């Protein structure tokens, strides 16, 4: 077990190293010279050379790479060209809304999707099953910017229950920040509930056909106990995986929702950085997202270990 953990953690470092290298290469593969692109067409060659020197772009590529790695190991991901701040600081400021949004929207998605998914699987083939699946598909196929706008219009502007957008400003209390996350979380949660619903339903359908579910029924327990105790625990294992991976995806991938609600999150940051050719920030975002993926993967694997005693590492 501890050998397994050591191996997994070493593996994580290898992945992070690879991601660092890929981020380095990708950014340099982008067409054009970053310095001239950043300064625009009106810059003099002298200005461009100065910036190149400041960015270290005049040095041999291998030296650049090693410097980049050495700095990264020390937690220095460079300085944002746009914000003129260390990349780590820029990222840190954006991480909270993104991580919380991913977390809350998954909670919303799970609350909507799992009961319906379980129910639909249990009533497979009935009109109720078909209706709930179709409704979920419809709800999920409404683009999140539209759902978001509808919520803003009715729940925020008209009823005033929630803030319309933003994250409450720099000095906002945690409670205020949470308040600003309610509508974005519901919006994103609805979008993601379809995937989780389909997954829960499929997983439950598989399990409900298992011999041990028949055994459970033969023991004379209520259908409720059969489904919620004997089937759901087994069906939950694959669901954990999807939820974990969706979480990693959402942390940097909730661009549309972050845009609509004007949340200062990582998705927004990444898109802005790409458009502004703020390469250090692009690199930094890639690395953070990779790290989250790796961590979530490890966490789900460890959870498997706890839930399913057949799994041995």
């Amino acid at each position, binding site marked *: 077990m501890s050998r397994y953990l050591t191996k997994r953690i070493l593996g994580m470092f290898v992945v992070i190293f690879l991601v660092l290298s890929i981020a380095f290469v990708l950014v340099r593969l982008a067409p054009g010279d970053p310095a001239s692109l950043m300064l625009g067409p009106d810059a003099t060659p002298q200005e461009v050379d100065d910036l190149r020197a400041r960015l270290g772009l005049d040095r041999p590529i291998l030296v650049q790479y090693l410097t980049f790695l050495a700095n990264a190991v020390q937690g220095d991901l460079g300085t944002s060209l746009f914000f003129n701040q260390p990349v780590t600081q820029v990222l840190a400021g954006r991480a909270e809304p993104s991580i919380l949004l991913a977390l809350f929207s998954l909670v919303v998605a799970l609350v909507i999707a799992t009961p319906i998914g379980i129910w639909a699987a249990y009533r497979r083939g009935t009109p109720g099953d078909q209706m709930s699946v179709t409704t979920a598909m419809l709800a999920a196929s409404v683009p999140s910017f539209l759902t978001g706008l509808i919520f803003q219009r009715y729940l925020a502007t008209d009823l005033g229950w929630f803030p319309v957008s933003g994250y409450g400003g720099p000095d906002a209390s945690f409670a205020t920040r949470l308040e600003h996350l309610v509508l974005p979380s519901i919006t994103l949660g609805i979008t993601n509930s379809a995937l989780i619903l389909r997954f829960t339903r499929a997983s439950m359908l598989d399990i409900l056909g*298992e011999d041990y579910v028949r*055994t459970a029924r*033969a*023991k*004379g*327990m209520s259908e409720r106990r059969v489904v919620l105790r004997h089937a759901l625990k087994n069906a939950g294992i694959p669901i954990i995986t999807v939820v974990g991976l969706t979480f990693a995806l959402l942390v940097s991938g909730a661009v549309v929702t972050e845009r609509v609600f004007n949340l200062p999150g990582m998705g927004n940051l990444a898109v802005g950085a790409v458009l502004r050719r703020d390469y250090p920030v692009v690199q930094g975002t890639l690395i953070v997202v990779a790290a989250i993926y790796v961590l979530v993967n490890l966490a789900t694997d460890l959870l498997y270990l706890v839930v*399913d*005693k057949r799994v041995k590492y």
Partner: protein
Amino acid sequence: MSETILTVEGLRVGFGRKASPVVALRDVSFALKRGETLALVGESGSGKSVTSLALMGLLPPGGQVMAGRMDFTDRAGTRHDLTALTPTRRRALRGPGLSMIFQEPMSSLNPLFTVGDQIGEMLLLHETLDAKARRRRTIEMLELVEIPGAANRVDTYPHEMSGGMRQRVMIAMAMICNPALLIADEPTTALDVTIQAQILDLMRRLQKDLGMSILFITHDMGVVAEMADEVAVMYAGAVVERAGVLDLFDRPRHPYTRGLLASIPDPDPKPDERLVPIPGSVPPLTMLPKGCAFAPRCPLAEPACERGVSLTEKAPGHFAACIHSEEVA
């Protein structure tokens, strides 16, 4: 001692649409006395499992009992008409009244719960005992089914056990509430021969000690000879012959039974002896012939067989559904 605890009469089970169901059981009738074993035999697809699931009230989705009676008497002597019980009353009977073990010990236990949890759950569902008492009873039961180191095995998971051990766990679970009737659907088919013999021994011993009746499903006539007091032979969803085990082996009165018996390998074969397979195969349920379903494969078939014949008593306690039963015997 010879009171009847289970009577099945004219049981008919269909799958699919109510208007035009596929009829899996056409006419199943048998009776089982307290403390005895009835073997239900027949080729694959003859409806043995469907019969047992109908008794348990566990027919898969789409399956429904269309006609017939299933009368069951519990340990307290109360008679239940299984077809008329409410789902809740029916559920309460599963475990303390009728309980069941299945063919597949590898997949019949839940992989995520310890065997102790799964056996103890029976007590949790049907008796009022605290956790400590449940655990004690569970360990006792594991000892009763001869699992070595029961006190430690109680906390292990099914995947840590062999098929034979898991079937013992299934038996422990099925028996812990002391059911009046144990239904065993091919409980040893998935096990190898030595383990099979041990499990059969165990079941016989428990039956004697606890005084339960067993409905034993198998297609192995050798096992029938070893386990059964009475035998019901099924063909294409109907019982075609019913008799005491000795009577049936001595004087089979249905050509199908005779075919089944002729196809048992002789443990001590003469040099020129051959197995005699029954020609042809079971017709699909949707294209059964008119009258006797066995006629197309029957050496004695004649036009009169198309009129069909129901199970009738040919000799005391010996029933057969064949117009030629005298010639067969």
